[in-house]
């Protein structure tokens, strides 16, 4: 053994790797080198614009020029003006409703594919992505065709005699926004939930049955908690982008369905007040992050309780 440890010492570097050449040869350096193109790209196109937006939010628009003295006035407006408060609140409520509905309708689909998809699992997943082949804009527009005054829904209901005259409450309100967004995002919620359900070891569910659980109880105590990571990511994937969604409210939202993105766009466009637009954006980002955190905590708490 003494001989062996002696040779071991000889192979060890004489001193700790502090010189530059050694670091370049290290695994850490090659790892960084490998990710650097992507990293630089992400830094340039993600962090820089965000930093610029944050910087703008503390400045003031002075007609055509920007006054670069630090001020919190934009945040006072963004948080204080009732119109922005209302818009932000409505955006949050709509996105929350959309995420809850999307996850709720997606979970059974994902569960069905994972547990009863049999040999056709891939076909099912493929079919789910089919709507995404067309443009997002077209999918939103098609809901106008479905929900409009002379649309599919109204003529259908008329023909089976459920209503006497076309409903005007289907389109151009927040419900239409919710319906359209749920449809647009369903595929993005189904996939993460499906993946997490696939990872649930089926023998765990058998073990739960063996220990006395019926099907519902084993779902609540084993399947659901173990698929929670998928539910959380589905929730976040849907919620975060929908808060700032611009196209859907613009096309199907009408006056009632206006969301914060419309106001932000107005400040960067017609309003020509970039600092206020920036402050609204930053406020939205912060609020969304806080809400996302709360949702994650709430879901985890829910699972603790059912346990």
């Amino acid at each position, binding site marked *: 053994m003494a001989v062996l440890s002696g040779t071991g010492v000889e192979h060890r570097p004489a001193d700790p790797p502090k010189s530059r050449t050694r670091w370049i040869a290290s695994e850490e350096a090659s790892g960084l080198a490998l990710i650097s193109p992507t990293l630089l790209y992400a830094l340039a196109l993600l962090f820089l614009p965000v930093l610029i937006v944050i910087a703008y939010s503390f400045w003031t628009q002075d007609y055509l020029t920007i006054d670069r003295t630090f001020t919190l006035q934009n945040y006072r407006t963004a948080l204080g003006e009732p119109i922005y408060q209302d818009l932000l609140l409505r955006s949050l409520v709509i996105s929350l409703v959309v995420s809850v509905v999307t996850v709720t309708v997606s979970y059974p689909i994902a569960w069905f594919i994972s547990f009863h998809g049999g040999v056709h699992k891939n076909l099912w997943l493929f079919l789910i992505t089919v709507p995404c082949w067309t443009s997002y804009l077209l999918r939103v527009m098609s809901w106008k065709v479905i929900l409009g005054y002379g649309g599919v829904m109204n003529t259908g209901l008329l023909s089976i005699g459920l209503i006497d005259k076309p409903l005007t409450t289907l389109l151009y309100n927040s419900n239409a926004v919710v319906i359209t967004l749920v449809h647009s995002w369903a595929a993005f919620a189904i996939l993460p939930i499906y993946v997490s359900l696939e990872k649930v*070891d089926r*023998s*765990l569910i*058998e*073990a*739960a*049955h*063996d*220990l*006395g*659980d*019926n099907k519902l*109880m084993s779902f609540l*105590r*084993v399947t659901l*908690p*173990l698929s929670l990571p998928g539910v959380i990511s589905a929730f976040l994937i849907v919620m975060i982008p929908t808060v700032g969604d611009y196209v859907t409210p613009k096309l199907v939202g009408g006056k009632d369905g206006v969301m914060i993105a419309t106001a932000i766009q107005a400040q960067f466009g017609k309003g020509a007040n970039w600092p206020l637009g920036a402050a609204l954006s930053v406020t939205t980002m912060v609020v969304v992050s806080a809400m996302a955190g709360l949702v994650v905590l709430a879901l985890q708490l829910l*699972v603790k309780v059912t*346990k």
Partner: protein
Amino acid sequence: MPDKPMIAIEGVNKFYGIYKALDNVSLDIAAGEFFSLLGPSGCGKTTLLRSIAGFDTPTEGDIRIDGQSVIGVPPNRRPTNMVFQNYAIFPHLNVEENVAYGLKRLKLDAAEERRRVAAALEQVRLGHLGKRRAHELSGGQRQRVALARALVMRPKVLLLDEPLSALDKKLREEMQVELRTLQRAVGITFILVTHDQYEALALSDRIAVMFGGQIAQVATPKEIYQRPNTRQVADFLGGMNFMKARVTNETATRISVETPRFGGVTVDKPLGFVARNGAATIGIRPERLRVLWDDAHSDFEVAGKVVDRHYFGEITHLIVDIPGLEQPLSVSETNNFGADDIPVGDTVRLAYDPDALVAVAD
């Protein structure tokens, strides 16, 4: 066998499409018995266990547990609990919560639940690891959690699906001893599925050997090892030397045969024995043949030439070619007297006990 079995399996068939996983299986298992289902993979032993647990439903036949038919009863309403092959420890719960999982449904008061969980963990010597998560446990510890989680339910029957196959050899032998001790302590019926014949022999009160969905033989370990019914059973439980012998007389229970080199013997007739062209297959275990040293003599001996030698530490396998036998004999000899030094090519004399010869059905 007591008059009322804990488990009664009657004429159970199980088809998967046209594949017959269980073929007319009938079996009685007594209360408090340590029973093993032994067989190669795909022999139906796991399907039979899962049918008892309720995860598989027999296509035909009846299974009664403690007198009650359980056909159509879901697993959660059967008085059985199972230790799964991969242990199926809930990864989102710690050890205590895993063990308490089934108790939650019983709505015990908190103190009683804690007491039973602690007792179950103590029983498998895991009292100190209650707060650990599944991924922080070793294979042996997971196995103990699975045992505690099942035993805490106080089932009438504990089902074990290859519980030791994932453990390394040393740990497996330790757990075998523990499993046997535990079974004696709790006194409930254990049904063990295994493909390891040594495990089945060491642990069981009785063993059922299965092949191709059928039960080939049910007997005590000693009986099944020493008096296997069929050549397949004999082979599966360990090495055996087979030879063809001429049947000279046959009664209802015994047959007399004239063997090529082992003389005339009268042996028990195995179940399902049919003489083919007046011949029977006679077998003898390698360890029932003994090398005769120097001047030692035996009333029953054969002689032959060593053609090969395999060293296994405490024993050596000698392959001895006996003139007149179709196949050379395999002899398992302890190394106490130098069997590992017998040169290949030497002639040895082997002593045997005529009682060690058995007839097996083909």
